[in-house]
């Protein structure tokens, strides 16, 4: 491996070159071949749209609104999903009680809940949050559940021999830490799915702001360069969530896993 190689052996410079190259090709195709900014705005158009949006300042309000929607949804999904996953993983009877219900509800696309979201919560942040919740809660339930199911028996027995006999202590001191890698990866998937639901959740007018809401707003004004700005923003924020989450989890919560062969 060369010195330029990152910790996973990939040379980041190659990636940077590819992004630059893609921008150049995009610019070329947009300006020389397509020529209609409505059909394909050039990167330079997008950049100037970004600057003017920054100057207007509404973009920050959009960001704030979207983050509120997102964290309402994800927060509720954690609050509901983790306890359900825990009891399902811990007790076979509760599992057989709840599992069919979950398997029936899970395949319904989150967006299909939009009508009821509006009826139940009105045009509020909570109805957008609800759609995100529906997208995020199932990966959390399922990963928490499978994490708890997979706790090695020897850990529970070793704990019992050392006086960890109350069921709540067994969950807290043994099952939960043992299941944490699985729970964390469920939350990570949920973050991704929840973020993807955001655009659609904001589409039905729960607020005058929001990244998804603005994407549709600028589309209706045929300002496609601004649409692209919001697309890129959505992508970058999703990426940032994922990176922050992974960094935090690997460095703090799951430090013990470094060097362990899975």
């Amino acid at each position: 491996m060369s010195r330029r190689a990152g910790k996973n052996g990939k040379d980041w410079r190659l990636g940077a070159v590819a992004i630059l190259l893609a921008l150049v090709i995009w610019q070329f195709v947009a300006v020389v071949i397509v020529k209609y900014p409505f059909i394909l705005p050039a990167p330079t158009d997008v950049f100037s749209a970004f600057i003017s949006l920054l100057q207007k300042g509404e973009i920050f309000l959009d960001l704030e609104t979207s983050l509120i929607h997102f964290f309402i949804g994800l927060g509720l999904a954690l609050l509901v999903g983790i306890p359900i996953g825990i009891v399902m993983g811990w007790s076979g009877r509760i599992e057989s009680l709840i599992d069919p219900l979950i398997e029936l509800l899970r395949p319904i696309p989150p967006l299909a809940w939009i009508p009821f979201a509006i009826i139940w919560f009105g045009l509020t942040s909570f109805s957008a949050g609800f759609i995100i919740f529906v997208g995020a809660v199932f990966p959390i339930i399922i990963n928490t559940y499978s994490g708890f199911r997979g706790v090695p028996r020897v850990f529970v027995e070793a704990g019992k021999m050392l006086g960890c006999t109350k069921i709540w202590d067994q969950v807290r001191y043994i099952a939960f830490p043992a299941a944490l890698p699985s729970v964390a990866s469920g939350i990570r998937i949920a973050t991704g799915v929840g973020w993807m639901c955001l655009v659609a959740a904001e589409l039905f007018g729960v607020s005058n702001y929001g990244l998804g809401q603005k994407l549709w707003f600028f589309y209706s004004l045929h300002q496609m360069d601004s649409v692209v700005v919001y697309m890129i923003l959505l992508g970058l924020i999703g990426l940032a969530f994922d990176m922050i989450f992974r960094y935090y989890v690997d460095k703090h919560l799951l430090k013990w896993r470094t060097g362990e062969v899975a």
Partner: protein
Amino acid sequence: MAKLEVHDVSQSFPRDDGSILTVLDHISFDVKDKEFVCILGSSGCGKTTLLRMIAGLDTAVSGKIIIDGEESTGTNPKVGFVFQEYSLFPWRTVIDNIAFGLEMRGVCQEDRYMVAEWYLDLINLTQFKGSYPSELSGGMRQRVAVARALTLDPVLLLMDEPFGALDAQTRNMLQKELLQIWEKTKKMIVFITHSVDEAVYMADRIIVMTPRPGRICRNFEVLLPRPRDRTSVEFAQVRREVLDLINQNCSIQ
């Protein structure tokens, strides 16, 4: 004076076809204070089942187990257990693994670390106190597991082939270390193994079991003085006696 009494313990499981599989058949034996007993038997003879019942992890169909004067009814802090497979909590550092039992008792961190450090020193792993189990070799992990089982100061230490997964050299080293720990702490130890060499090297007394259903075949006192030398003529003689005993009387009927 601590004592372990196993009275007429039997264990059986129902099979799929409705018949009953007897795993242990009327097992009785005592372990005296400070005695090191090895239970020797081939795989499938029910020795792990027996140990798990003494530990209180499983319940016998009949018979009773009396530890230090009290009839056993489940897991008991007077009993420490070292598992065959790696059982350290991978999310806890070495010292937090060792201190786990004290933490469950509500001992404050400062006090439990003090005790844990004493045991860390006993197993010569002080410099690994902040390491995670994944950073340790197999032999070190089992040493930590021994220390963890000792921190609650049990009267009885149960060990289920704890060195079975280790290479021969590490295994010999750990046997020696365990004997030193035993000299210092003087616990009763019930140690399960299928290795005649290991049993003769470690035990005051070897209980030889026959398989299917598990029965006690013989009690064999090992009178060799300690420390034992596994290359000596006397050692080889005792080994041969045990092997002969197994071949003549205690093999599968």
